[in-house]
């Protein structure tokens, strides 16, 4: 079963991330890279994507005349999606365990970030 692991943050959170030292950033990336490699080997890795920071994000509603209405949308405190992982696993517990490892990846001064990761299961493709 496929699960999506959602990583969100706020503008403040992202600004904080920008101030990490180079070596802290490297350590974080290395940990994540190692997790990807493991999951590829176990066949549990499906995908991961990063999203551009929300400066350019838009919310679109279809107007009656069909033209999209767009407006910038993220007030300072609002959470937005940074990116996600998709894993193909046998049990929900396995999905939570993987999320836990990502959450434990080191942050500034090598302290685990403990970032909260939202875990959601994919529905059965009603839209396809």
């Amino acid at each position, binding site marked *: 079963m496929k699960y999506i692991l959602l990583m969100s943050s706020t503008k403040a959170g992202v600004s904080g991330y920008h101030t990490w030292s180079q070596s802290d950033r490297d350590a974080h990336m290395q940990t994540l890279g190692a997790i990807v490699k493991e999951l590829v080997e176990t066949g549990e890795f499906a995908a991961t994507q990063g999203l551009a920071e929300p400066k350019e994000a838009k*919310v679109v509603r279809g107007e009656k005349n069909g033209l999209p209405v767009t407006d910038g949308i993220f007030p300072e405190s609002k959470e937005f*999606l940074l990116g996600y992982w998709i894993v193909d696993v046998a049990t929900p517990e396995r999905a939570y365990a993987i999320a836990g490892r990502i959450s434990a990846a080191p942050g500034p001064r090598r302290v685990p970030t403990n970032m909260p990761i939202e875990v959601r299961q994919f529905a059965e493709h009603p839209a396809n």
Partner: protein
Amino acid sequence: MKYILMMNGKKSDFDGYAQWSKEDLQANVAFMRAFSRELKDSGTFVTSEGLGWPIEARLVRAGSQGEPITDGVFPESKEFLAGYWIVDVESPEQAYAIAARLSHAPGPGGEPGNMPVEVRRVLSSHSDLGL
């Protein structure tokens, strides 16, 4: 360039959706299928997924021993991702036009929902820094 189109909703929105009449639900699903079909026909479809409902959502953090601590309690105001499409297009404007179309998905009573669709650029694993 790849864009993600996301539909979000609060728990109350999901509960509301569950109250729709059978006809309204079928119309909405039919729209979504046709929408995906349109994207496939136009050569812009990359992927699309619907997500499970908020009741199944879990927030996971690392515990002190690295074990996952899961929690199923979210504030009422939290917006949950309901589903997304990823499209491969030539311009942001094309992505917004597709999102506007998606936003017209029929709601209760068959009226166009005018649901807000969040549009974000997907980061590529390629470099872009000119030659």
